[in-house]
């Protein structure tokens, strides 16, 4: 028995050594760096172009291999691997909330100096993305791509029903009217759940609330103010559209569409089959949409989200950051430099992986009117216009982590949808929970207290100025939404 035991042990040791020898780092003569990111098919091309770019730009001076790691991009994996010292060299993250959480954990390398030196500073991308890429003036990331979501329209669905596609800019009332008409025409009384047609895949309560002039955080980002009539009204409206008018699908409807194949999951498939007449997404939807209809693409149009008087959308970025514990940080900067290069921007334009990091690249003919995709002409311009004119970044309070805010928002909205709470109770709970999280965060980070108190004083002054109808000094406003909204309404100096 003991010889069997020892034999098994020996086999396991040999197998382990053999497995280790198969790892890319063990086989390669040059350093191998890893980039943890989403399983986007465009990553393969981006890596290939990077290796070419590295060879062309630095000939043989700098030589290393970059590998994509799509199985470790989940937030908890990134954080746990990061604090354990075994994170990926390049950490990809989706939007400001992820970046802020990872920065708070301390696994992101500050890159301001290197960015300046190597040319991938904040001046090389959209100015509005500053809160998504930097904290307190220190840069931590650079965009892989930029997203200002809009509504994609499957024009054929409207045509088939004898309706015109929606206008580029439309009000909430028009949205409801068109939506009701469409679902009435498209769905018979006995339609089965998997055949039902909806106007749009989903809508963001935050964008609708902002379109009515209110954000969930106050001007100084010191408190959540979800418990206000506008947010409550929007919650009610979305519920009505989902459960009564059936313009939007509910969770059960989504589950009825059993397909989940392809990049982006079921939503794109449902859009292509016409179950969703419109799709709420960024330009990156084209990665999948170009595959449909035997590769010929679809008859498409892009319109804004419905608005209650103030057209807007969010703007965010899938960005890359350098892992603080990485052994090859000096090499990782070359990859960051590549992200600001014309070659990389051209790749993003060609494979339609959202908007390129550099806004200048959106002015090119290749971006606006791609030769191989005439059906998309006009769509790219709509995204560029949205990013340049109506996009406002999310409001990140420095006194609470955004993933905590998201969690509380999801819980509160979920309770309302399940009719476990009224819209008023849900909004009140969300506000109470987030504000109590702010107090916990301040207790954990006492160094933030002076700044918090300073802003509280400013907030009081703002409230007084608003009451008195006086113009508010611009520097008092920290919330990017109010900065833009007040500017357009002429409320700030």
């Amino acid at each position, binding site marked *: 028995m*003991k010889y069997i*035991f020892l034999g098994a042990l020996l086999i396991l040791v040999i197998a382990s050594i053999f497995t280790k020898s198969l790892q890319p780092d063990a086989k390669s003569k040059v350093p191998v760096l890893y980039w943890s990111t989403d399983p986007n098919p465009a990553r393969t091309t981006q890596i290939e172009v990077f290796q070419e770019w590295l060879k062309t730009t630095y000939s043989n001076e700098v030589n290393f291999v970059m590998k994509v790691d799509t199985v470790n991009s989940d*937030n*908890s994996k990134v*954080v*746990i691997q990061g*604090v*354990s*010292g075994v994170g990926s060299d390049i950490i990809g993250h989706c939007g400001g909330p992820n970046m802020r*959480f990872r920065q*708070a*954990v*301390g*696994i992101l390398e500050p890159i301001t100096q290197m960015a300046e030196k190597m040319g991938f500073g904040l001046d090389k991308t959209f100015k509005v993305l500053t809160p998504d890429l930097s904290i307190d003036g220190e840069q931590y990331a650079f965009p892989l791509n930029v997203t200002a979501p809009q509504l994609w329209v499957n024009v054929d669905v409207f045509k088939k029903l004898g309706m015109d596609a929606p206008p580029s800019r439309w009000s909430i009332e028009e949205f409801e009217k068109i939506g009701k008409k469409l679902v009435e025409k498209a769905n018979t009384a006995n339609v*089965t*759940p*998997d055949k039902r047609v909806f106007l749009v895949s989903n809508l963001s309560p935050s964008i609708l609330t902002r379109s009515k002039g209110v954000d969930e955080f106050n001007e100084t980002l010191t408190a959540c103010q979800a418990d206000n009539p506008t947010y409550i009204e929007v919650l009610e409206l979305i519920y009505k559209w989902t459960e009564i008018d059936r313009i939007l699908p*509910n*969770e*059960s*409807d*989504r*589950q*009825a569409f*059993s397909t989940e194949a392809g990049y982006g999951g079921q939503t794109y498939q449902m859009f292509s089959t016409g179950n969703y007449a419109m799709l709420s997404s960024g330009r990156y939807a084209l990665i999948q949409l170009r595959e449909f209809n035997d590769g010929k693409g679809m008859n498409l149009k892009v319109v804004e989200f419905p608005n209650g008087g103030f057209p807007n959308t969010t703007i965010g970025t899938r960005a890359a950051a350098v892992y*603080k*514990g990485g052994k090859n940080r000096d090499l990782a900067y070359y990859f960051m430099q590549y992200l600001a290069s014309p070659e990389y921007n051209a790749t993003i334009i060609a494979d339609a992986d959202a908007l390129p990091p550099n806004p200048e690249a959106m002015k090119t003919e290749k971006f606006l009117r791609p030769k191989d995709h005439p059906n998309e002409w006009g769509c790219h311009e709509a995204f560029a216009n949205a990013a340049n004119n109506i996009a406002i970044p999310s409001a990140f309070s420095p006194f609470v*982590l955004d*993933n*905590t805010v998201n*969690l509380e928002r999801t*819980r509160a909205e*979920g*309770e309302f*949808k*399940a*009719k*476990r709470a009224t819209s008023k109770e849900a909004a009140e709970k969300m506000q109470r929970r987030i504000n109590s999280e702010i107090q916990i965060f301040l207790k*954990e*980070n006492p160094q933030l207290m002076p700044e918090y108190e300073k802003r509280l004083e400013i907030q009081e002054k703002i409230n007084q100025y608003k009451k008195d109808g006086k113009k508010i000094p611009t520097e008092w406003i920290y919330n990017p939404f109010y900065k833009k909204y007040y500017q357009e309404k002429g409320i700030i100096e």
Partner: protein
Amino acid sequence: MNSKKTKQLFTGIGFISPNICGFLVFTLVPLVFSMILAFTNWDLKLHNMFKPENTIQFVGFANFVRLFKDEYFLMYFGNTLFFMMGIPFGIAGSLGAAMLLNNNFRGLNNRVWKMLIVSAILAASLAVLMAVGLKATALTILITTVGGLMLIGGAVGGSTVYRTLFFLPCFTSGVAIFLLWKKMYSPVGPINIALAEPLNNLSKTVNGIEPSTVQIGFWLLFALMLLILAWRFKVINHKWRDAEIDSMSVILPTLFTCIPAYFFSKVSPVESVKWVPLTIAVVLLIACIINWIIKKQDFDSTPWKGHGGMIVGALVFMVAQFICIGLALVIYNLPEMATNGLEAPQWLADYYWAKPAIMIMSLWAGIGSNNMLLYLAGLSNVPPELYEAADIDGASGFQRFSSITWPQLAPVTFFIFIMSIMGGLQGGFATARTMTQGGPAGSTTTLSYYIYTEGFNTGRLGYASAIGWGLFALVFSITIFNWKFGSKYVND
């Protein structure tokens, strides 16, 4: 110690060392570490290798104090307890399966004929289902084919085939099972397809009858619930008088018996009768107490005698009363629900259906689990002469079960019950993660999933550990309670 013994000792240690190392590294050390963590403010955002300037501080019981104030902890604890209500059904299912599988099906003996009769009933049931609307879909063909194959397999291969089939869910990967059931629960999945036409016909029937006629069902179930309540008190009273139970053993089971009556007062759709069950319960309780004070027990009883059995009985009766209430409410509201046609549930997308949906899946997986194997082993240890004696005395099948099988299996049941309670309190993570993400509105979030979200969404590992140890305290208390009273039940 001579050299041979030393060699043997080292060989032995060598054999068990991988296991010991694994236990130390992956169980004992993390266990101790998490206990220490629960008393600290360790937060991943503040304390990690990149922030050496921050030190972890002991915060005493602060995390535990916060735990008791945490509204989500209580909510998710409630969810966990709700899921555990399925445990008795799972145990009963395992026992039933084990008793069936304890028979030999090989060859054309009497049992096989019985099986063929059962299969004929199955075929007839399918015919009825088809008549009420279940079309000859692939599902019907699938059920019939699988059923037929199982019967043929059983006749040829004996009970081994059935044992393997029943045990299948236990060695199938959990994630695969969850994904399969997710598809089954889809609004266009096989369950809802099968339910659609029967529900359609039912709604037509209900719409054709006066609502008051349909609601007779509510009153019948209401009466049944009262009967169960009264009968339970009668049983308690008799057992006390016959000294089968001690006075102390009456308190908790009596309280359990009254819980459904209190629940009914909260949910009754008919205002005039909402307090009736509770009033009857209180009157019966007072009558019993007066009876116990005035009269004496016929024999002497030992302290806490019969307590375990009483608790098990009370739980069974409590569940029976809850079933009556649930069905009564459904029937009462049926005419209104049927007005626009009855629709199949939204299962995982509906706050109220998500929990039962997961419980049904767990029941399916639980029947053919290790519990069934334990019962099979337990059944093989029951002395056959007991059954022979019972046969000579002319005992019926039920008497054989209640007087021989059930008491003989009491130690196994007790073990299964304890393990199921422990598993139930710690369970629900994989299901929530794979099927529902804890939703809708947190309805399927259990304590174990909450520990994960707290630990990795907010990074508060100290607090997450405190929740973990809070959970341990609950498991430990319930296990102690089980040992204290359950072992008496086994010995009784």
